């Protein structure tokens, strides 16, 4: 084991001096991510320029028992990239090459630092489609998407990141390269290691290559907006659409608070008196799209929508999505601190969950706007507050506890897509039960005996005790 100074020199030798940062200002710039949690600066930050260098960095960390945290774009909302004191942050943003887009076999091979939206655009240029589209796609990395199993607006019809990971190459805790999965649609060769690694938040291995499934681009799409006088009508509409065997690409929900915030912000002419709005898009073959759109419209009307507007052209379609895209912006401008939560319930429980959130907002005297992927039951209650106000912050913490409790009571889950990280790990046992945590900790202890891979995330601190 080298001294810290010796180890620093070793990193400089292996990765090149320009790729090792240790000045206090640089360290502070890697002490946070997009979650509202305590920050912590690392001891060192490294930026490998090749997969090989990435593996060497992992190996060096393991040899010297230095905890490491991989960081893509640092946009996760659960504290997943906050390092350990004395730990190292490994950046993947120099590993940003799309290695292959295979149009015959419908897959792509990428490095982990490729930015989601850039990848989606390159795939589209080849006439194909990569559906997962998290709201952060303009900056998020594919490595981060896989490690968080990110979702997006198109989850209802097209699934989430997991559904597109065909294979992975990753470094284990000792920096050995492990290959999982294949370039084929079917693959049962060995354990499904890829399945284990997806959503592992950097705690089980460090991805160096990802093989992603691509699909043909749908030919046509149509977006519409439906306004409801009651929340329950909107969510019953969601169920009605799906039970009519129509699976829209997107089925987004905005509550009254969010509608008013968006209207205040963008003056797009939204109905500020509406209790809820659904934003719906169907896609497929042109004839199918027209038929589905007409059906959706009549279902909305039957379920009590007071206004329905179908986009007639691309510009109108953009306008519909602009309203949804600006939801977070509009809300976040209201108060200094924005806590974006991610509680998810079975689709039929959406109205109950929304009622609970409204009650919680009243009980703790907080502003909460709720929008989200109603089709998936994945809601984003967004708490608007000021972290500096300690009294209010205490109420926020209690409200978050209660939101989770309610979500679990309703048969839901802690997180639909934002991950557990550190911010939700304390709730995990409540959802999964003790046995799942013990099992997970055993896996972690076996695969990462020195507990260097993003320690403390998901399953908490105590790892090797059992």
């Amino acid at each position, binding site marked *: 084991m080298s001294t810290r100074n010796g180890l620093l020199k070793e990193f400089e030798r292996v990765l090149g001096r320009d790729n090792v940062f240790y000045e206090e200002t640089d360290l502070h710039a890697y002490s946070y991510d997009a979650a509202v949690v305590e920050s912590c*600066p690392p001891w060192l930050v490294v930026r490998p320029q090749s997969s090989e260098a990435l593996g060497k960095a992992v190996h060096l960390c393991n040899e010297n028992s230095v905890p490491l945290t991989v960081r893509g774009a640092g946009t996760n909302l659960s504290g997943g990239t906050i390092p350990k004191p004395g730990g190292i942050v490994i950046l993947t943003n120099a590993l940003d090459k799309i290695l292959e887009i295979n149009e015959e076999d419908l897959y792509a091979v990428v490095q982990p630092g490729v930015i989601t939206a850039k990848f989606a655009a390159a795939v589209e240029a080849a006439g194909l489609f990569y559906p997962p589209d998290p709201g952060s796609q303009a900056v998020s990395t594919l490595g981060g998407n896989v490690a968080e199993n990110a979702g997006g607006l198109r989850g209802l019809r097209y699934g989430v990141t997991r559904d597109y990971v065909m294979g992975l190459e990753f470094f284990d805790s000792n920096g050995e390269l492990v290959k999982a999965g294949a370039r084929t649609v079917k693959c049962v060769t060995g354990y499904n290691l890829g399945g284990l690694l997806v959503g592992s938040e950097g705690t089980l291995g460090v991805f160096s290559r990802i093989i992603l499934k691509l699909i043909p681009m749908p030919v046509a799409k149509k977006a519409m907006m439906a306004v409801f006088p009651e929340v329950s009508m909107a969510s019953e509409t969601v169920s009605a659409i799906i039970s009519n065997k129509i699976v829209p690409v997107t089925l987004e929900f905005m509550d009254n608070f969010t509608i008013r915030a968006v209207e205040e912000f963008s003056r797009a002419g939204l109905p500020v008196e509406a209790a809820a709005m659904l934003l719906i898009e169907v896609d497929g073959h042109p004839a199918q799209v027209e038929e589905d759109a007409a059906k959706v419209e009549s279902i909305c009307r039957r379920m009590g929508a007071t206004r329905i507007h179908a986009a007639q052209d691309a510009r109108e379609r953009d306008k519909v999505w602009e309203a949804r895209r600006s939801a977070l912006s509009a809300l976040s401008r209201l108060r200094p601190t924005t806590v974006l939560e991610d509680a998810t319930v079975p689709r039929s429980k959406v109205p109950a969950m929304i009622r609970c959130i409204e009650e919680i907002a009243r009980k703790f005297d907080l502003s909460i706007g709720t929008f989200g992927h109603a089709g998936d039951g994945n809601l984003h209650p967004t708490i608007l507050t000021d972290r500096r106000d300690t009294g209010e912050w205490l109420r926020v913490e209690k409200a978050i506890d209660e939101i989770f409790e309610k979500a679990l009571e309703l048969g839901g889950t802690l997180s639909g897509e934002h991950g557990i990280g550190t911010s939700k790990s304390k709730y995990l046992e409540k959802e999964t039960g003790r046995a799942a945590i013990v099992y997970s900790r055993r896996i972690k202890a076996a695969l990462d005996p020195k507990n260097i891979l993003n320690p403390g995330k998901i399953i908490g601190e105590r790892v090797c005790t059992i």
Partner: protein
Amino acid sequence: MHDMKKLAALVKELEEQLVVCMRCGMCQAVCPVYTETGREADVARGKLALLDGLIQQIFKEPGGVHERLMRCLLCGSCAANCPSGVKVLDIFLKARAILVGYTGLHPANKIIFRGMLSHPRVFNSLVRAAGMFQGVFLKSADEFLGTSCGRFSFPLAHRHLKAFAPASFNTTIGRLNINGGSGLKAGFFVGCLIDKIYPNIGHAVLSSLKANGVGVFVPDEQGCCGIPALSSGDLLAFGKMVRYNLDLFSAGDFDFLVTACATCTSTIKKLWPMFAGDLSEAEKTRINELAEKTMDISQFLVEKTGLVTAASDGKNFDREKALISYHDPCHLKKSLGIEAQPRMLLGANSGYVLKEMSEADRCCGCGGSFNLKYYEISASIGRRKRDSILQSGCSTVATSCPACMLQISDMLSQAGEHIRVKHAVEIYADSLERDLDVDTH
């Protein structure tokens, strides 16, 4: 030892603005500096976190934060795309001023801002002298673009700089105060780069105004708009420059103040009112009034005049058209939302067809003194712009800011590319000259 506590108290003034950042990281998508370096401390989120760190007294000394704060083009791309509406540029400019107030102004900056730029008469005569001698130091690199590179090895030697014009705009024109047929009258704020390096743009402004029957007021010995001082944190010099210009233009009677420099326009409109320092109420009112009526030349011509065109006279429809592309200066599009008007000026010249380049509003990487301090980063950002220009297949590239023109010319010239770099108003005036026989001077 640094008194970091005292500094924390000063930076705390920015707290209300700093807390607006929710650390979402969306600014990474648009920051030109971050795109090149991949370092979090270079993107707005990182810099804002560093300022927050000063408040929390996390750092042992202020130098590191100051240095990273200066690694920024002040292009405003982050602010224009920030979901939370963080006033990034306000914060950065204020923070630079606080840090300079705390650590002291760099001696070289002191000479430039306090000794030269805030005394326009001295500066102007220095430049006149330099113009006479520059032939000795600069050899012409590209006759076509009119750039020069250093004859002797000094730090700027590998760059293709535009030389000072043989005679500045101000020297040629002197003071102007004439009325026009339309009854409208414009004050013309020339700005350093147009005055000393691109006087042709100034002449194009005059002929465009004339063609549209607009009277003009141009005081002589105009000063710098102050942005170099402000962006280096020198509020004192900035305040002096603002007051100097204010007095100069108060002598005239005009409806609008026009400039052909995107940076000057956005500085006058947005930064003069905010940063001019301790002013009397009367002075504040005058600044606000002046800022209110300041306009980019293309916006003025399009919105306030009938925009006389050669086509409206039915001439020259059958001329072979050349491809022209347009680069959106950050200080025009991102800061003031002006993008259609300059393109309309180009459209008014029937000799050209507009061919948009990809990412037309991507920063060119100049960023004023950023270009001098961080030339390598600046140049790699500039090369992306150059590539977009080349891919568009245009033979002329137009823009609305002389600083962008300098950077683009440098990049094209270094690559040996013969693409003309012009101001949109030059393209417009050019059509007038040829087609309407408007005499320029």
